[in-house]
């Protein structure tokens, strides 16, 4: 099976990897780099649990081949988390108890982070639309939406 040498920056660290042609970015992150914060919920681009930032844009990492990420900058939930503390967005999720099982949370945080980067003061509808691709079965979404609002009010992600 053909493999390819790629260079990809993940959470600010440059990684040199040999990846098979068919390997997805999701599998590369989880299985080659052990960055398991990014979750595999469907491998079909439907649930959003695997959302990561690729050159600043949120993507379903199960729908991107690792070879396509050659030269790209990737940020995962691990990259959102400052050392020894949480980001304001993460703190807002804690404040609102916007987490239950936590499986969708990493993908939700990435989508919300990307929203706040491009629109620092989103209204409720903008938040709902930004999160429409991130399925959550536990929370009913309302607290997630409030947490994003709180983070925006406090100055961003």
């Amino acid at each position, binding site marked *: 099976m053909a493999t390819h040498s790629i260079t990809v920056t993940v959470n600010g660290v440059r990684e040199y990897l040999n990846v098979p042609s068919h390997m997805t970015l999701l599998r590369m992150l989880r299985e080659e780099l052990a960055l398991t914060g990014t979750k595999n919920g469907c491998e079909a681009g439907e649930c959003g649990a695997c959302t990561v930032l690729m050159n600043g844009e949120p993507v379903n990492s199960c729908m991107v081949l690792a070879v396509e990420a050659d030269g790209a900058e990737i940020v995962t939930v691990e990259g959102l988390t400052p050392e020894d503390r*949480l980001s304001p967005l993460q703190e807002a*999720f804690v404040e609102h*108890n916007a987490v239950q099982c936590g499986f969708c949370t990493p993908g939700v945080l990435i989508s919300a982070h990307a929203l706040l980067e491009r629109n620092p003061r989103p209204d409720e509808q903008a938040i*709902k639309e930004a999160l429409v691709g991130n399925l959550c079965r536990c929370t009913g979404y*309302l607290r997630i939406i409030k947490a994003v609002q709180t983070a925006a009010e406090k100055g961003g992600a």
Partner: protein
Amino acid sequence: MGSFISEPVGKSVPRVDIREKVAGTAVFADDLQFGPGLYYGRLVRSPYAHALIKSIDTGKALAVPGVKAVVTGKDVSTRIGLYLIDRPIFAGDRVRYVGEPVAGVIASTEEIAEEAAQLVEVEYEELPAVFDPVEAAQPDAPLLHPDLGEYEVANFIFPEPGTNISEHFKLRKGDVESAWPKCAAIVEGTFRLPQIQHVPIEPHVAVALWEPSGQVTLWTSSQSPFAQRDLIAQSLGIPHGNLRVVSPYVGGGFGGKAGVSMEACAVVMAQAVKGHPVKLRMTREEEFVGTTVRQSLVAHTKIGCDAEGNLLAMETEYYFGGGAYNDYGVNIARAAGYSCTGPYDIPNVKGDSYCVYTNQPIGSAMRGFGMPEIHWGIEQIMDQLAEKIGMDPAEFRRRNCVRTGDTILTGMKMPAIDLVACIDKVTEAIDWGKREEPSAPHKKRGKGIAIMWKAPAMPPNPGSSAIVRFNEDATVNVEIGAQELGQGAFTVAAQIAAQALGVPYEWVRVSAPVDTKYSPYEWQTVASRITWSMGNAVRAAAEDAKRQILEIVADYWDEDPEDLDIKDGKVISYKSEREQPLQKMVVYGLPNEGFEGWKGGPIVGQGRFMPTYVTNLDPETGQGTRAVVHYTVGAQAVDLEVDMETGQVEILKIASAYDVGKAINPDLIMTQIEGGAVHGMSSAFEALKFDEKGRPLNPSLVDYRIATSVDVPREIHGDIVETPLEDGPWGARGVGEHVMVQTAPAIANGINNAVGIRFNDLPLSAEKVFLALRGREEE
């Protein structure tokens, strides 16, 4: 130790697991690393709903480079099950649903396993299949389990061998025939619910390792690590002590990860490649049809009341479509039978609840366990009865709902609850009786109400246990076998331990993951039983530890333990006003005078809880002293709009109120109320669809839609009612499932209020609503 929260019971303290969950460091089963020795498995599944297996040829699959082994039903002939042992781990001589595991391929990579799985050649002889539970219950229906009479079964489950009926629960109270003539209003209807799926965002995953020594380890995403150990050990003849089940955080369960589904396949596959862990991970498609689903239901229900609105009689038949194997589903039909009236006091009841084999995915536990299904019809009939006699539907419910001390349908006395208070709370929150203006001329607005009850449905004697261990610095490790699914079980365990010990909440750590090798026993994290049952065990363990500490300090001070207490992590004497910090003494003890020896030692408290008072019920009448441990009750009201041009239903507001006995953590209950309302709302629009051959048509998140962020109501209002439960910790009872039980009928009642049309069948798709609106126009 900085700021701390003392006496945390009743306070909305932060979840113990939330910081690691937002940081992405919380570990789920698929995140565990096993190194290069890991193999991967794929299942070969039946393409037929009902067929005999004539032969299986694994030769071509085994020839694929990288394939390590292929297992089939020939390698394991035993069955597995909780209440009715009816399910082969891999199909034997026949398959009974599309998706049934027929073989398992183990290979060095997932891709190779998948490729080889397609090369396993299975010759089938197709048999007639049956999908509708009423049809399947007929004597001439195709028989799924000719050996039903030989299966091992719990002594409170009553299968009817020679038919597809795996359970028939009979409820007989009073005399319905003589009551009908006294009724001023009678409403009768047939209500249908399709199979739906739990859709946890985390698919099922299991990794099994069978060591050459005979030690077996299973890492799974499971609500039931101990039940998995028990059932798999029994089925495969492994000593319980040799089978270790490790279960990290569960990424959503909702009942779908209760009991055993695909995990036993992983263990059998690991046995074929001893020494190598084998990972079996469900695709989203497999998750929909190859794990478990909520059972379908056909309910024929007739209820009558007098002119004053007093309920007089109810007759009902529930036919649960249990799918191909009913090892768990039989108890859902039983629960629906002994609670068949819903939360109403009805003097004359005739109920028959059947679980019926159908050639469909396996029906099993799902949030509510039979209650969402039966309340769908009951709660619409109650509205219709109220309308017939000209009474307000909320008032009708206040008049008839079950109350503390009532002799309920099984003959048991109703433990303390206040359902009227729940009705009052939701009617107030929704402005009941006030007609609201729709947001646009082409929309109609309406309100609906529904109430519910649910008891934990389980064997009579499911136990919980807990251990509380002190560390040198007086931090505490609480060991439990209950699982954290997102509902907050670990947080509640920490709160209860801290409260009962008298130490700050922040000093408590919950030992995770649940590991049957080290964690104390817990039956299963199901049935909304954990806050109550585990809570009692944790409290007992903490009180045991506290007693040990007080005895040591009382001896040290030469005082009576009765005069001592622990507050904020210090032993205090109410008599002498002395203080003794817990640090160090909880491990090293305290010295005798002049250091002439020592007293005490490491503090380890243990506790357990098991209900001892539940009785079996008479098989002919369903009567008995104590059918269940208790009931949790609640009410919901909705405000909604129907788009007359598209048939789309938009839920504007949901108001919920539940009697939880005591809110150990009020905000965690609100998270259940909110998430449950949206889950309940979503469930009203969900359905698994099959073609005429029983092949699934929508096993994906695109074709089977669950509620997204844009679908949620603008407001979810929640109220907590607290009528203490006699044997709950501080009076607490569970509420995790109840929060979605009556949402669908509340919506149906709201639709009727808006447009005057009743829908007896779920789902409430826009297409169905649109066609009904159109049909009425044509009339």
